[in-house]
């Protein structure tokens, strides 16, 4: 599945994504530190970096996904890379990048957790929540990883909709993305999801069932993207 060419694509795209994420994390960390040191609102504990960054990280990857069809695919085909190698390369880069986006907040959060014990922060930080949830840090990491990847593929789905079918059909892909987000919320946000007519809350039932549901959804997105990019005409 991964040829030398798709590995070339993966390394180039991954580097590009890391470069963009350095800006993103720098800004996010600056905002977080301002909140911790100056805008902490008194004595109530505030969330650690992992919880603080989760939502923004997902939105960041959604934006990266949206940029993908326009930024990467045309560039790859012009450089003599096939759509297949471009697709697998981008997917591989996105998976590696989702891992990076999971590990970095987790590492910063862990650092905060250690520093909090030394009482260097003016306010209590709820850094332990990540490590003490149902299945601990691993569960939090798996959850963020799958969410980030889902947001990336959904962004890519929206952009390929516009790229391939123009703007009216593009709206249809936005509607499709709302269904994906609804299902994602249903899986990962117990009691806070949009599809409240569904019979039960998987996250409450079993963490691994949620993971399975999330992976299945990612597989469907992955296959849909492969079909949509397989023979796509390149814009000039």
């Amino acid at each position, binding site marked *: 599945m991964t*040829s030398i*060419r798709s590995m*070339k694509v993966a390394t*180039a795209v991954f580097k590009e994504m890391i470069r963009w994420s350095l800006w993103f994390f720098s800004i996010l960390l600056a905002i977080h530190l301002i909140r911790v040191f100056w805008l902490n609102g008194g004595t109530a504990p505030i969330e650690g970096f992992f919880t603080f960054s989760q939502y923004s990280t997902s939105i960041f990857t959604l934006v990266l996904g949206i940029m993908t069809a326009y930024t990467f695919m045309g560039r790859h085909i*012009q*450089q003599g*890379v096939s759509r297949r190698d471009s697709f697998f390369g981008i997917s591989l880069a996105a998976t590696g990048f989702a891992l990076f986006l999971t590990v970095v907040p987790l590492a910063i959060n862990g650092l905060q957790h250690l520093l909090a014990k030394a009482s260097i922060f003016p306010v209590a930080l709820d850094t332990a929540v990540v490590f003490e949830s149902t299945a601990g840090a691993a569960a939090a990491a798996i959850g963020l990883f799958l969410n980030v990847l889902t947001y990336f593929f959904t962004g890519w789905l929206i952009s390929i909709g516009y790229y391939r079918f123009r703007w009216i059909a593009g709206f249809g892909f936005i509607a499709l993305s709302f269904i994906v987000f609804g299902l994602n919320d249903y899986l990962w946000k117990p009691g806070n999801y949009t599809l409240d007519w569904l019979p039960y809350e998987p996250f409450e039932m079993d963490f691994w069932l949620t993971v399975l549901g999330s992976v299945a959804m990612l597989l469907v997105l992955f296959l849909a993207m492969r079909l949509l990019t397989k023979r796509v005409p*390149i814009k*000039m």
Partner: protein
Amino acid sequence: MMTAVQLNHVTLKFKKFKALEDISLTLEAGKIHGLIGRNGAGKTSLLSLIAAFREPTAGEVSVDGAFVFENPEKMEQIAFIYDKDYKEETEKAKKLIALASHYRPHFDMGYAEHLIKRFKLPVDKPVNKLSKGMQSALNVVIGLASRAPVTIFDEAYLGMDAPAREIFYKEILIDQEEHPRTFILSTHLVSEMDYLFDHVIIIDQGRLVLNEPYETLEALGASVTGAAADVDAFTATMQRLNEQQLGGTKSVMVYGELGETKRQEAHALGLEIGPVSLQDLFIYLTEEAN
């Protein structure tokens, strides 16, 4: 490195509009092909099919006998350089060159640096801040230094001034000597570039009008120069493409082969017979098709 391109009954439709209709031709390996056509003739559509940017509606495009669309080995051998819109490209020029070297197996960075100097390309500037001519120079640097076995330049000179275009043409000829490949040069500037071509393809309204080696074009017409009255009399029954007069001397381009008898008759009249210009031939053939 010698790669041939074949198009077999290729048609391309955009809804009801036929951009290309039943085109069959072979682009021979190691030659410089001039692709000529008026605006909207279908030149870019044709080239985008060779570069696998899209699929033909009917027919086949192949490189050395293998279909090119989604064929990684064949796609890698084709570099398609066109007038790209760089309005949103905030990367520096050197980053785009580095990207090309990352993907292109035959990319020659030393040659790219030589070309950068030749064109005086400011590689540390964001591409969207470069002038149109410099953006074209960047495209040319990437296209030439990629050393792809099939290199396509679709009006790559747009915005370049005359000296920069001259550098471009010279570099094509020099590099073709040392690293022969199959070039396709699509152009409007026929009279400026015709000396580069080994083979000429003219398309009009999506149809193939001419597909000939450059040297055989001479047989398609001639220029007749001499005393105005003699030239007029000699060419009276011929298809005239163009005429120019300076004082009593007139030069007329005619379409159609001049036989040996006609040539001797011209000689007897003191008329000079020369080759027909590609520009005149192009204008005539595309007007006739319309």
